[in-house]
């Protein structure tokens, strides 16, 4: 019985954190956040060089052969640092191909994805909050027509894994005929979204697309939960730090019990869920019969906590907390993203209820 991280896993988190401390300090984060494109190729290249692009891909294709838990640990650290970039979509696309692709598809794409030489993303959502495989309606086939929403950095992707009717997946390449990509203004400016329109666009289905799509969904839920845990933890730390420095009535505001209790409540809301996302991630590779439901609960629970903590953090900072200039808003918007992406908490709670046979 060892419900804890290995030394290698702790080191992985530490390395990613140090890299971002150096390569994406607050000023850089702010530039990217405020910038027009929101995509920093050098930063992503650096992350890929550290092995983050292929962490979970099989070693025979140049990946590191690690598990969903390791991806989730990276996700926590990225959430903690509010790291801008395409990690989430890229990781999920690779995971789907590794799980459901043909040998030819794997050989063609995974080595490039593992090094980061090619960037991939996933196109899941359709009009009306249709996020999940059984809700997809773009008809499967040798060419696809329809439109997909909320595709992370589709405008920079070489490859898009598209969800199709019946819960399958298909690959669409960057310059494919009839593919139109429209960047849209998204609240979270660290993970920009696009609309993807397909008009008779050539596509190649993944042979085991249905299995891959459910794994993709569950892994995505876990990665969002992990990101939320990291982000919420950071917001508690930022708010506590602020309470130790900001003075009113002649003392630091952390002296005031009302604020102290708010901060304690924020900590109590988030700290216990570390183990919840760990377990959900671990289950995806080791406790298959619990994986789907635990992922749903983890996503609903932790992203809900993140959103509330983000609201509390704004309040704890007073007027400055409400400004564009204050960094809290960056995490606040990531919380909005984590909560809404792939469906709100209510959707996943209802799924959890159904899966329990309630």
């Amino acid at each position, binding site marked *: *019985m*060892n*419900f*804890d*991280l*290995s030394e290698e896993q702790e080191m992985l988190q530490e390395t990613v954190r140090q890299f971002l401390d150096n390569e994406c300090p607050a000023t850089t984060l702010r530039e990217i956040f405020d910038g027009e494109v929101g995509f920093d190729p050098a930063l992503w290249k650096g992350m890929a060089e550290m092995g983050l692009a292929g962490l979970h891909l099989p070693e025979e294709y140049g990946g590191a052969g690690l598990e969903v*838990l390791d991806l989730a640990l990276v996700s926590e650290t990225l959430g903690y640092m509010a790291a801008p970039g395409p990690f989430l979509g890229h990781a999920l696309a690779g995971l789907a191909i590794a799980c459901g692709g043909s040998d030819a598809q794997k050989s063609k794409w995974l080595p490039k994805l593992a090094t980061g030489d090619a960037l991939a993303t996933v196109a899941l959502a359709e009009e009306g909050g249709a996020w999940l495989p059984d809700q997809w309606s773009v008809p499967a086939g040798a060419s696809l027509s329809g439109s997909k929403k909320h595709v992370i950095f589709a405008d920079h992707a070489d490859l898009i894994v598209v969800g199709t009717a019946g819960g399958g997946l298909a690959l669409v390449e960057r310059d494919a005929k009839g593919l139109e990509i429209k960047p849209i203004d998204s609240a979270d400016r660290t993970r920009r979204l696009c609309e993807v329109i397909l008009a008779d666009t050539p596509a190649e289905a993944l042979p085991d697309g249905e299995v891959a799509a459910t794994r993709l969904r569950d892994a995505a839920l876990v990665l969002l939960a992990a990101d939320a845990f990291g982000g919420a933890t950071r917001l*508690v730390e930022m708010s*506590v730090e602020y*309470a*130790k420095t900001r003075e009113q009535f002649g*003392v*630091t505001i*952390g*002296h005031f*019990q009302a604020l*102290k*209790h708010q*901060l*304690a*409540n924020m*900590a*109590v809301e988030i*700290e*216990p*869920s*570390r*183990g*919840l996302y*760990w*377990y959900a991630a*671990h289950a995806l590779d*080791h*406790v298959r019969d619990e994986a789907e439901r*635990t992922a749903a*609960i*983890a996503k*609903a*629970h*932790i992203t*809900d906590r993140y959103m509330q903590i983000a609201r509390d953090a704004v309040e704890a900072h007073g007027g400055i907390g409400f400004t564009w200039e204050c960094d809290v808003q960056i995490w606040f918007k990531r919380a909005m993203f984590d909560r809404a992406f792939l469906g709100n*908490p*209510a959707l996943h*709670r*209802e799924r*959890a*209820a159904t899966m*329990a046979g*309630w």
Partner: protein
Amino acid sequence: MDLSYGEELEGYRDEVAKFLNASWPLKGDEAKLGWEEQAVRFRERAIEGGFLCRNIPKQYGGSEQEPDVLKAQIIREEFGKAHAPMEPRGIGTMMLVPTLLERGSEWQKEKFVPATIRGDLAWCQGYSEPGSGSDLASLKTRGELVNGEWVINGQKIWTSGAQSADYMFILVRTEPEAPKHAGISYLLVDMKQPGIDVRPLRQMTGGADFCEVFLTDVKTPEDWIVGKRGEGWLVSRTTLKHERNSIGSTQQTRALFSGLVQLAKERNIDGKPAIQNADIRQRLAALEGYVKAHQYAGYRTLTKDAKGESPGTITMMNKIISTNIGHDIARLAIDLLGEDGLLDAGGSGMAAMMSGGHERWISHYMYSLGIAVAGGTANIQRNVIGERGLGLPRDAAAERSSK
């Protein structure tokens, strides 16, 4: 990360299961005894086998095993499955015994520990006073050394189980000139003596589990002090630590939650099982998020303990987390009871009208509040988390009054 216990520990699990198979429930003539008597005999054998009272030395009636949190967990799991009795759950075994083992003198351990873990001695905790609750260190009950014995005068309140206790462990002020925390001593007192007047207090639940205790020239021998004069505050901290751990158990929370799910299956809303109601499903699933987070935080704590590493701030949070979950479960349960929530739990109330024990939810609705107060209120927990956990400055008023 590896959630299996490994070969060696699974071997140990088999050993525990084999013991239980042979020993619980009791067989032959012994099976006809009452549950309590059966439990006493079973516990003796379980101690002999090294399964209970593991951290208590053999000379004090324990089984003196190498500390091993994983084995302890396996024992809890297997005993739970077999519905076999664990150590008696009184305040004596949970709070006094660990304190005596850590701070008591040799004769105190010999006299009190074996009898307490056998369940022969019942204890009560005399800390709170009418004027001293959260600010416990302001307590006023006096202890004076007169002709080689302590003479105690004052009043305690909210003393759980005082009406049936053999002894009390009590905090009294022995050094009135010293600063507040340094003037307190920790004494053991025989409850069966003149000068002790126990008056049960009726709780909102209708029962009377706690009491007022008036002490007038109550006597206790000079050496019935635990630790030195003026060290009582420190000694009492050992006890409170144990109380927090015992309240923060994730297993109780999970059991309560599965009871709630069961309740939702048995109750109806609009003529259909409540579990099919969209709002109830949302609330149950939302609650389960907290329950599961608490559960896995428990796994992590267990692992950290086993490795001898600190689990961090989570240890300070367990009481408030389980209290919060208990409140949420209570609120949902009372909604599920609907109009039956108008009834009292006992008498001609709900117990009489319903089968299936649903009346316990009416009691739980109220008891969950008692738990929030007993052993340090939620606000006091938040102070601890804020100050010791997050490193925020100490409360100005508390700072002043501790001088």
